[in-house]
């Protein structure tokens, strides 16, 4: 049997797509599913997925865990563990639409949880850190359980299959989100595993990514010093951890984060103002191991916005479109034209230059 | 103009320049054939001072060349800064040897005068002594000095 995710490093090509309303208007998943259809050939049916922000307004204060279980016993084991750390607010099936294109489905549950204050006090950590630790523990140590989404008021939906089928399977037309990201996968050496599909999430960060990064092991071995465990050995996973580490734990801004991941060349830095020179030099000096090289286009989703970023040589395609309050991002312009047929303003961002979109304050 | 200068602090006294010179001006393509079993008459000569310091001396291509002024046959001339000898005109009187204050014009072993012509007339292209010096003690450069 071929090795699964986590047993071997898996490079893969992909398609990405995203749409976001800066006004915080919530839209159902129809449009984002449609956007993946013209990019069908960028996937090979071994993985598709979506992330949606703003979909659980009534549970916005709770962490929404989306979990795959291989068996009832695994589910029971996992729930026992969760109860040691969290109040279980709600535990339910994620509704799916049975279809021939999607097979081998695991048990798919959605659990809203709230960290127990006593635990936080005992461990001297904040609630986010607790979620990260527990999720890492489940994913690394509990056989048959895999948490694939764990943020607030957001969720990831993914499966083995083509992305448009995955969207239908999860009935995404029934969810309303102000920000959607999508991913179609083209892995080159795996039979495909549900957990290995994208997006990859950590707290409310979700990453969809197209590329194969050459810095992988340098990034992985660095980030693993800080409690992360790259169980999937995928680019998306490590980039998610890098984003979490830089944004949440180091407190870098999105721009600063982009300047670490896709650092400007020294020759570019030389030409900047003294203040910028000092800043960029500092970031490259302090976080050299988090520079990501090789081709990538990623879309980092988070509560209240998203950031799209290309590698600094722009070795992967990525286009951005803007119309009214909407911003669209995709591997191919065709995908954007599906979502917004009348769109005028489409451009291709330069390598290493982040495109950051934020929803109006208070609108999500 | 470019001239040959010596850096005596780097001269090893190995005398390779003399052999490279003799070979370069031998008109032959094989050094062994050119020099083996022969006394060489190089146009550059290594001297050793009282402290054991060595350095090579070759034609300075003077601004006021006594050799050119003294040549009875009109065989020596200065063209583009280089003092040349026209061997077809030279009759071997060696007056040039008698007047060169640096001892840089020498007899070639057959009674004819010869001197450094910066390897411009042989197939070397650039001074062989410079090219062959293992320690950069002889250089061919323009120090911007007035003619």
């Amino acid at each position, binding site marked *: 049997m071929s090795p699964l995710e986590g047993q071997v490093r898996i490079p893969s*090509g992909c398609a990405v797509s995203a749409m976001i309303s800066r006004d915080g208007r919530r839209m159902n998943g129809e449009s984002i599913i449609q956007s993946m259809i013209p990019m069908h050939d960028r996937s090979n049916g071994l993985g598709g997925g979506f992330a949606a922000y703003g979909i659980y307004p009534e549970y916005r204060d709770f962490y929404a865990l989306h979990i795959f279980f291989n068996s009832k016993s695994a589910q029971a084991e996992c729930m026992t563990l969760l109860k040691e750390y969290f109040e279980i607010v709600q535990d339910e099936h994620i509704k799916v639409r049975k279809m021939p294109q999607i097979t081998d489905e695991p048990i798919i549950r959605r659990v809203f949880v709230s960290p127990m204050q006593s635990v936080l006090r005992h461990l001297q950590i904040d609630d986010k850190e607790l979620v990260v630790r527990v999720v890492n523990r489940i994913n690394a140590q509990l056989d048959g359980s895999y948490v694939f989404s764990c943020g607030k008021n957001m969720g990831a939906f993914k499966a083995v299959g083509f992305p448009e089928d995955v969207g239908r399977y999860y009935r995404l037309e029934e969810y309303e989100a102000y920000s959607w990201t999508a991913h179609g996968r083209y892995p080159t050496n795996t039979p495909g595993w549900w957990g290995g599909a994208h997006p990859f999430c950590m707290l409310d960060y979700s990453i969809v990514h197209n590329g*194969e990064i050459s810095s992988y092991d340098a990034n992985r071995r660095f980030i693993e010093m800080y409690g992360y465990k790259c169980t999937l050995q995928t680019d998306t996973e490590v980039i998610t951890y890098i984003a979490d580490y830089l944004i949440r734990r180091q407190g870098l801004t999105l721009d600063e984060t982009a300047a670490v991941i896709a650092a400007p060349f020294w020759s570019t830095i030389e030409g900047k103002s003294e203040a910028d020179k000092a800043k960029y030099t500092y970031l490259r000096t302090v976080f050299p191991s988090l520079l990501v090289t*090789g081709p990538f286009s990623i879309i980092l989703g988070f509560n209240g916005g998203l950031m799209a970023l290309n590698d600094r040589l722009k070795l992967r395609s990525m286009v951005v479109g803007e119309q009214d309050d909407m911003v669209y991002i995709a591997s191919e312009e065709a995908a954007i034209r599906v979502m917004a047929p009348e769109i005028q303003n489409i451009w291709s961002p330069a390598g290493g230059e982040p495109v950051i979109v934020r929803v109006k304050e208070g609108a999500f | 103009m470019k001239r040959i200068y010596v850096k005596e602090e780097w001269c090893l006294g190995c005398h390779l320049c003399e052999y490279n010179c003799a070979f370069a001006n031998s008109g032959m393509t094989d050094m062994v054939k050119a020099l083996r079993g022969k006394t060489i008459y190089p146009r550059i000569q290594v001297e050793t001072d009282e402290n054991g310091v060595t350095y090579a001396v070759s034609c300075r291509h003077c601004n006021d060349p006594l050799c050119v002024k003294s040549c009875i046959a009109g065989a020596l001339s200065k063209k583009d800064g280089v003092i040349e000898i026209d061997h077809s005109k030279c009759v071997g009187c060696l007056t040039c040897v008698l007047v060169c204050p640096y001892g840089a014009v020498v007899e070639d072993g057959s009674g004819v005068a010869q001197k450094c012509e910066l390897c411009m007339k042989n197939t070397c292209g650039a001074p062989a002594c410079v090219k062959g010096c293992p*320690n950069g003690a002889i250089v061919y450069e323009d120090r911007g000095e007035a003619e």
Partner: protein
Amino acid sequence: MNFYPEFEVVRNDSRCIRCRVCERQCANEVHWYDEDGKVMLSDESKCVNCQRCVTLCPTRALKIVKSDCRLRENANYSDQTIKEIYRQAETGGVLLSSMGNPNPLPVYWDKILINASQVTNPPIDPLREPMETRVFLGKKPDHITRNADGSLDTKLAPQLTLSMPVMFSAMSYGSISYNAHASLARAASALGIYYNTGEGGLHEDFYKYGKNTIVQVASGRFGVHKDYLEAGAAIEIKMGQGAKPGIGGHLPGTKAVGDVSKTRMIPEGSDAISPAPHHDIYSIEDLRQLVYSLKEATEYRLPVIVKVAAVHNIAAIASGIARSGADIIAIDGFRGGTGAAPTRIRDNVGIPIELALAAVDKRLRDEGIRNNVSIICGGSVRSAADVVKAIALGADACYIATAACLAMGCHLCRSCHTGKCNWGIATQRPDLVKRLNPDIGSQRLINLMDAWRHEIKELMGGMGINSIEALRGNRLMLRGVGLTEKELEILGISHAGE
């Protein structure tokens, strides 16, 4: 006991033009000209096979070959072993050797292969795209801090900035010549890297290269004073050396002459003996005290490097150093060179740098303190490929010394301890020192580093990496061939084909 000489001088008389260059250039007085017979003669027993005569012979009339006169074959007692016994039986002395361990022990660099991109991601052409090799060595902060206005506080612990991840390793003035130091200093300056004074102090002429100088503090403390410490860009505490772990150094009085003795601050002609330990460092906490003493003395302006030989428990030692306040750890493998070391020590003590480096990098990461220190890898880094492999194993930069000596003309005859280096490197004899013209020496070092930088960029480009930091510790880019499971495990790499 008389042996047949180890080398034979083969002179092709039909090519010899009697220019006597060989005679003039041999400090061992192997060659001479016989006026009567008009031939060149030689005394081969004096020959160390430094190839000076071969190199300078204008007609290629000379070669030096290994003598085939052999003692009776014995797979257990090699010729070398037997002759060493004879020598010791004769002299009662410790055998001395120079340069690195020449024995056929495994060279792991040669059993590690480098990856390249095909199809799924593109190789990068260094002639078309920027390819960055700049490296910072020094302690990195665990957390960023911000100024009141929210901007990043960009103050950092002192860092060394290298244009490429290679530096010239410690070789003292005394063990090598003034001109060798001049060559290294000038090349380091021109290249934007660093050279290392070694333990012999810093000649006053070279203070001007201070921005590119690492000053060493070794157990003998030769030439160490306030101005010296402040002259460099970093201070290196030498705890050990790969060629001779566990023992000190010994510069014979014959080399401690003139400026060498002045620079070392020792009487002319006296032996300069570095003790095996630093007598103020008998434990890791003592090291911490010295690290901070040196930092205090230089107002925390300079990073402190601690250099250790790669020995069995190097990972634990490195962990201790990383917590000692040191900014950089230099690890020197058992193949590293020396101007003189007891043969038995050189050939039998220490471990390969590849394994040591991998173990140290892993240990520091396991302990989450890899960012506290930078790692320099030394002890037989021979090519750009070795550099790339070292970086991918986890080094921040490499130290080279043997390769640098080779660039300056060394022919690895391993006779440095005689002080008669025909190439003007490991000698203090003025007529020999003169043979290394720093104009040439520095240019050759610059050429070598330029060439390596190009090759590093080519290799990186092939891997689809366009900045050296993305290569550091990127062990997925390496595969082993012909290595055991254990070796692969220690190196932290997969076997080729996996």
